């Protein structure tokens, strides 16, 4: 096991924090896109090492948070069926639907399982031929290639009892949606390094041009984030825009071509609703016609399930960087991790949960 300790050196992080302080002359609002980045910022206390002039807002990049309520209700409806073995990544299990979450379905006798890889779900389907195995395909461009791989494998094996409930979302359309809102406060982006490892950075060039904004592709370690923040602030102070790569040890402009090919075989883009934000055009993945027979929503006829968000939850504003968790009237009162009203309070990477757990002294 090799560690990335050089990206967690206290002395180096302090040095960068000092140079940020020397650099900033005006107030700037930056957004980190990815929930993993939010998590690192707060977990390591980096947010408190920045000068007051720099405000970080948290983006829509937590896949658990942006999954619409109705999709969770659909997952729950499928998981409750007696013939179904429902498999998901761990952190989706506790997200509340309108009435139930997946862990409660399990507690009531449903066969709900936590898996680490969609390929394990394919193996499960092989092992349990009398059951219908459904995998909850959640996540950004990062997890999508693994799902695509699993679907290709299911096709090769011609598995009749495997399907996926697709909820994939894409980052660049969400950035565009945020930037085109007149209320947008964001002056610079820390783009999610993992996503770009797969997709490269080409998609970001037109966005940086059109909105004249610096976008720095940033990794997930403390030093990555601090350096990414410094690069973004330096561009802003000098009046530059464009795409820069901080996370060059993993990201190339072209990205991972075999993974992209896999994605284009299995998925096509579609309009998709984001929790608290609404439908963003061309912001999601749907199965291509060749793979439609693996679509769980169709197989179990749950496409008509709809749901309404609790009115008090301002998840939409939080996910767009327009509000901070503490601006929500329910934060820490009616809405707490043990009784979440909205998705950002559920996932460990959700902004509300991060503020609630790490933020109070």
């Amino acid at each position, binding site marked *: *096991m090799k*560690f990335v300790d050089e990206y*967690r*050196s*206290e002395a180096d*992080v*302090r040095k960068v924090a000092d140079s940020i302080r020397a650099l900033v002359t005006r107030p700037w609002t930056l957004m980190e896109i990815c929930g*993993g980045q939010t998590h690192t910022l*707060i*977990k*390591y*206390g*980096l*947010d*408190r*090492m920045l000068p007051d002039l720099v405000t970080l807002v948290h983006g829509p990049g937590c*896949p*658990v948070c942006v999954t619409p309520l109705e999709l969770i209700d659909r997952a729950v409806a499928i998981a409750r069926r007696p013939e179904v073995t429902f498999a998901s*990544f*761990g*952190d*989706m*299990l*506790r997200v509340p639907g309108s009435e139930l979450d997946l*862990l409660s379905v399990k507690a009531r006798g449903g066969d709900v399982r*936590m898996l*680490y890889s969609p390929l394990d779900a394919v193996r499960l389907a092989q092992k349990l031929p009398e059951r219908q195995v459904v995998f909850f395909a*959640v*996540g*950004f461009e*990062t*997890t999508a290639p693994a799902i695509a791989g699993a679907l290709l494998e299911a096709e090769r094996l011609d598995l009749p009892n495997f399907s996926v409930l697709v909820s994939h979302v894409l980052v660049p359309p969400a950035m565009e949606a945020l930037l085109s809102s007149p209320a947008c406060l964001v002056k610079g982006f820390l783009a999610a390094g*993992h996503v770009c490892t797969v997709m490269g950075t080409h998609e970001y060039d037109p966005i940086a041009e059109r909105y004249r904004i610096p976008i720095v592709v940033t990794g997930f370690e*403390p*030093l990555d984030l601090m350096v990414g923040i410094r690069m973004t602030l330096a561009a802003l102070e000098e009046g530059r825009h464009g795409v820069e790569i901080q996370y060059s040890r993993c990201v190339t402009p072209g990205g991972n071509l075999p993974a992209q090919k896999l994605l284009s075989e299995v998925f096509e883009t579609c309009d998709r609703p984001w929790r608290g934000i609404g439908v963003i055009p061309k912001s999601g993945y749907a199965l291509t016609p060749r793979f439609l027979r693996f679509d769980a929503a169709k197989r179990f006829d749950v496409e008509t399930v709809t749901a309404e968000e609790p009115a008090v939850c301002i998840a939409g504003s939080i996910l767009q960087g327009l509000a901070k968790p503490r601006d929500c009237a329910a934060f820490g009162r009616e809405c707490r*991790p*043990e009784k979440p009203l909205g998705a950002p309070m559920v*996932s*460990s*990477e959700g902004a509300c949960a991060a503020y*609630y*757990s*790490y*933020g*109070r*002294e």
Partner: protein
Amino acid sequence: MSDDLGEKLLALSCPVPVSDTPNILLGHGGGGRLSQMLVEKMFAASFDNAALSEMHDGAVLPVPAGRLAFSTDSFVVRPYFFPGGDIGSLAVHGTVNDLAMCGARPLALSSALILEEGLPMEDLWRITRSMAEAAKAAGVSIVTGDTKVVDRGKGDGIFVNVSGVGLVPDGIEISPRRARPGDVILVSGAIAQHGIAIMALREGLEFGTTVETDSAPLHGMVASLLDALGGDVHVLRDPTRGGVASVLNEIAKAAGTGVSITETAFPIAEEVRGACEILGLDPLYVANEGKLLAFVARDRADQALALLRAHRYGAEAAIVGEVTDEHPGRVVLKSRVGGRRVVDLLTGDQLPRIC
């Protein structure tokens, strides 16, 4: 039981005629002939001691005057065999440690088993043997017990409850409420080992090397600490379920003081750290079964550290934090990179993240 006889017994194969009943039957819990055979041939022979051999409804123990500590713990771990241990030794260690954390010297244990119909007799034999060995190594007797059998499908093979009593020496007053500002916090070794060992096995994950449980009896280490430091040991806790973070939160709340810890001070094995990274788990919340946290008066901290390190289960002991009068009721961590954040209680179990 003489050592000699013990060894012989442990080396023997399962004493219940496996050819007749290779699996647990409902009748093994029914109180009749099958039950009796199980109790006499397996449990009484393995746990052999004067109190147990009375075959009474309970054990009658001579107890010197003083204070008694009493603790109970149930074990439902799945699978029941895992690298470095099994549900039997785990249950014995768990209760021995709970007594030790009260400052008590363990005196006697009970063993209550809930068996699922169909449990392989060989597995029960292995677990019984392991309980007997663990109790012997800890110098404590299993003096009474109970066995029930539930229908197939109504249990995970075997559930084990071990209760125990122990004596608290005079002058020893161990309680979460006794944490006070200035106390130094020590951990007796590398954290998060047990939880990762179980998770890796259960989920079929591989991390290069096999992570073993750290399950161990800690009363010997506690005794050496208490003998030397006496009343200067204020709090002892074994950070089992919920890990170090949960226990520190409980203590901070009970004492109404702040706890501040340093992330990098916690010893942690490479492969455990790697597993936590991959799974997106915070090792501070992962279970331990053979570690303790000790809160001691500041001027005795170095001595406490030396005592822990001198013990076989404490070689990697470290000072990890202190009690403060700032942020009462809260645990605050100095992160690896020098930032600060609160370490709160978790809502449920930690769930591995998506990306």
